[in-house]
């Protein structure tokens, strides 16, 4: 601020000297209305002014990075689907299906999944604490939800859930989350390392903003990837450095592939800054083996890369032979601490068994950076003041759900297990169904909420797609939508272009 005040003062001082030059410049500038009075506006002058000048905000004058970035999950296919949905509403017979089935996005509660009762009880009480004093409330809410609501409210200054909180989130809630992380991993977590955000996505954007200085800065991203990463990198003007997951080995991640891509990009003059790992994977669903994770941590340490660990699907693991291990746990178990590895871990309330997408709750745990970097992260977070309080509360509930012995434990665990086992069954059912289709092969979904079947498109189909000026898998998805009302995302939207896939 001081710099800008001094700068403007300098301008003021210089202005009298410049006045002569300034007035001359007006006469020759295209902005001939500079000195006119408001009453001079006329239709004729308006048409000439708009023909010589572009609108300040139009396609050819807006930030080109905005134009460049793409986000297929809510891209063209969804716009088309929404249009069809409107058509069905006005003319039910317009299409050979009755409804649109949105399978493009991990939005479980829009497809009938119920929220966890205990979580919603606590949130409702925190939204309207006035009823906590009423005896009738006891009859409507479980005793432990009332207790938890009181506990949370006591951690909020003035019990004011409508007030901006600390920019990293309410301290007491961060304490709870840190304790939850420690219980999960067996290694301590510091509440001051936690930044609560409106979903995990804003946290990802924040890190990209910090890391990317120019197009010479590269971020290693898995292909296929959840397109938040490609979109965010494009928006911040960086370069996406792809590393290819191996479909033949269940979408495995090889460190040799990481090394190869790193070397290639360095030879092109790119400074690779970070490695994004999505575990469990999106859209692939693979759960990394611990050995694999150790190799990845070692790689990041050796090469001086920030490890960005997207772990939002940590509660979605469907196969008994695999288990989720956080990268934090893995690095600490290798004896690596703050000084050894820079690691940012992302978690969200949108996935798991809770599926609370609309709440926009999440956090990043930031470890291995110096205090000066931390200050900058805090500063950027503070410009938006804080994330929504209800989402913060929910994040703390997700990281410390009811325990054995709590009144709500049984109903909570029944709901949780019901949802998870249903997801596992659906994954298996769909995987089997896809594998039986002609020209389709489907890897097992070990985790997350998606399947990423491969479709072998005949030559003629590919030609038809070309004629329609669409990627072959996008063409397939459009035809599928028009015939059935089912919305899938073409695999090319996730970066997968060496073969064609669908994501849903």
């Amino acid at each position, binding site marked *: *601020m001081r710099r800008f005040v001094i700068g403007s003062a300098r301008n003021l001082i210089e202005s009298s000297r410049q006045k002569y030059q300034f007035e001359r410049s007006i006469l020759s500038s295209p902005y001939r209305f500079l000195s006119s009075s408001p009453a001079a506006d006329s239709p004729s002058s308006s048409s000439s002014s708009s023909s010589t000048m572009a609108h300040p905000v139009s396609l050819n004058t807006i930030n080109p990075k905005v134009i460049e970035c793409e986000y297929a999950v809510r891209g063209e296919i969804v716009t088309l689907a929404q249009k069809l949905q409107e058509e069905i509403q006005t003319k039910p017979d317009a299409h050979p299906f009755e409804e649109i089935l949105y399978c493009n996005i991990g939005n479980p509660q829009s497809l009938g999944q119920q929220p966890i009762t205990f979580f919603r009880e606590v949130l409702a009480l925190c939204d309207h604490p006035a009823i906590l004093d009423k005896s009738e409330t006891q009859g409507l809410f479980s005793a432990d939800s009332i207790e938890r609501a009181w506990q949370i409210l006591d951690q909020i200054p003035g019990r004011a859930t409508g007030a901006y909180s600390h920019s990293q989130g309410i301290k007491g809630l961060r304490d709870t989350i840190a304790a939850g992380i420690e219980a999960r991993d067996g290694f301590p977590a510091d509440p001051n390392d936690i930044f609560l955000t*409106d979903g995990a996505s804003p946290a990802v954007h924040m890190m990209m903003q910090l890391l990317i200085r120019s197009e010479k800065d590269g971020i290693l991203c898995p292909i296929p990837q959840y397109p938040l990463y490609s979109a965010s990198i494009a928006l911040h003007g960086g370069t996406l450095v792809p590393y290819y997951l191996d479909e033949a080995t269940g979408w495995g991640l090889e460190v040799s592939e990481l090394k190869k891509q790193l070397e290639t990009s360095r030879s092109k003059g790119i400074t690779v800054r970070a490695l994004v790992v999505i575990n469990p994977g999106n859209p692939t669903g693979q759960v990394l083996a611990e050995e694999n994770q150790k190799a990845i941590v070692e790689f990041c340490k050796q090469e001086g890369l920030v490890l960005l660990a997207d772990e939002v699907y940590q509660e979605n693991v469907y196969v008994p032979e695999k288990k989720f291990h956080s990268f934090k746990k893995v690095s600490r178990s290798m004896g690596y601490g703050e000084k050894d590895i820079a690691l940012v871990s992302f978690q969200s309330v949108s996935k798991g068994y809770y599926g609370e997408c609309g709440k926009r709750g999440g956090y990043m745990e930031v470890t291995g950076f110096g205090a000066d970097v931390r200050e900058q992260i805090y500063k950027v977070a503070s410009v938006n003041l804080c994330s929504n309080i209800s989402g913060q509360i929910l994040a703390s509930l997700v990281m410390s759900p009811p325990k054995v012995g709590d009144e709500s434990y049984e109903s909570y665990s029944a709901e949780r297990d019901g949802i998870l086992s249903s997801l596992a069954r659906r994954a298996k059912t769909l995987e089997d169904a896809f594998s039986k289709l002609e020209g389709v092969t489907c890897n097992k979904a070990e985790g997350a909420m998606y399947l990423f079947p491969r479709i072998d498109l005949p030559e003629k189909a590919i030609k038809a797609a070309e004629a329609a000026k669409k990627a072959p898998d996008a063409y397939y998805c459009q035809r599928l939508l028009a015939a059935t009302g089912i919305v899938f995302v073409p695999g090319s939207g996730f970066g997968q272009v060496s073969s064609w896939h669908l994501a849903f």
Partner: protein
Amino acid sequence: MGLKALDYETMNENVKKVQYAVRGELYLRASELQKEGKKIIFTNVGNPQALGQKPLTFPRQVVALCQAPFLLDDPNVGLIFPADAIARAKHYLSLTSGGLGAYSDSRGIPGVRKEVAEFIERRDGYPSDPELIFLTDGASKGVMQILNCIIRGQGDGVLVPVPQYPLYSATISLFGGSLVPYYLEETANWGLDVNNLRESVAQARFKGITVRAMVIINPGNPTGQCLSEANLREILNFCYQENLVLLGDEVYQQNIYQDERPFISSRKVLMDMGPPISKDVQLVSFHTVSKGYWGECGQRGGYFEMTNIPPKTVDEIYKIASISLSPNVPAQIFMGLMVNPLKPGDVSYDQFVRESKGILESLRRRARIMTDGFNSCKNVVCNFTEGKSLLSTGHSKAFVFCDFFSALLLGYHTGAMYSFPQLRLPPKAIEAAKQAGKVPDVFYCLKLLEATGISTVPGSGFGQKEGVFHLRTTILPAEEDMPEIMSSFKKFNDEFMAQYEDNWNRSRM
């Protein structure tokens, strides 16, 4: 220690340039002191519920029911929730695509956007298109999205008032653009002079900057002034002539404490002016649930409305919004409730009106208490106008110059929730600040904090003319705490001034 990918030196330079004083040095120091056990009164941010303002009951009832829809099936729900809250909860749930837990449309729930459009039409008398209204996680997110669209690089300038709410300077820094300041005139009630605008633009252009947009904050932050209709017309003409998109930050439109100058939206004036202005001038208007008498800062609910933005550009803005999937759904419901309030006859109507009026009148009173309290402080110049509407008795409408640090806040206080008094720091104080390596108003505010626990934001955080100092405080502390706060402030101020005053000639100007 091995190679480090992210350290201070290798970080995005734009991030380093960002400053946001509202939660900057003073706030951090205040938080430290609070941890050490000192009682702190935070007046650094417009955060009413943190200072005791109670949330309105009805919206909280509705959202609680939406959070826990199983309550709606319980026969006893009527014992603690009124019928209209129950009905409204059902209404909003029916508008969602699966309750509060599902991502909504990336632009926000269509039904809520329709309610916003209807509100705008009622307010302004012109229809508004819900397709051009995007709900956001607070107005700040919307501002950032729009500026990100506009700013291509350093060559793009955005006109920003001085003083301003530092979201604008921070965001422009973050996106690598150029801030083009235009000075508000303190001696004219922080009014806007079009000649200042022209000069700012000309100077920017001379430096090779393409001025793209103009920000107005109406009612003003930190200054509290409401723009007159004439002023708004001048601004719109100016934007038309100079081909600028107007960004109208109108988040304080409910915080008006006098009747002479009501809030008039930029859009209304734009439409009133007819073609070519109404067809050609591009406008984005911002609103929020955080201010007004709702004060629901923690919900993070806001919207922006676009006027005369071409369809393909709207699509691009939609695309960016879609990357974040959707704004948080509970706040969307708060927004719906705010723009579609209760009506006479509704069960909860009387309580709602009572609570709302109570808050607004209390804000008015607190502005006055602060004034009377500051009245007895030394060494501060105040200007105030429109005294008749705001002071208790006897003052005429004429300009009154005084060397009391008085209701300037009040005088300027035609709206918003802040006071921005001018501090006439003696030369010795400025020297002491320099010795301490601090900007003079930061120096004053830090000393104020250490002595009294009152946490303010120094005027340099908002921008001011060189050599002129201010601080910003809110009028939000609880009424019953005000007298003590004011006497504490006076004690500090008078001692500070006495300490640094040295035969200083007290002149009127």
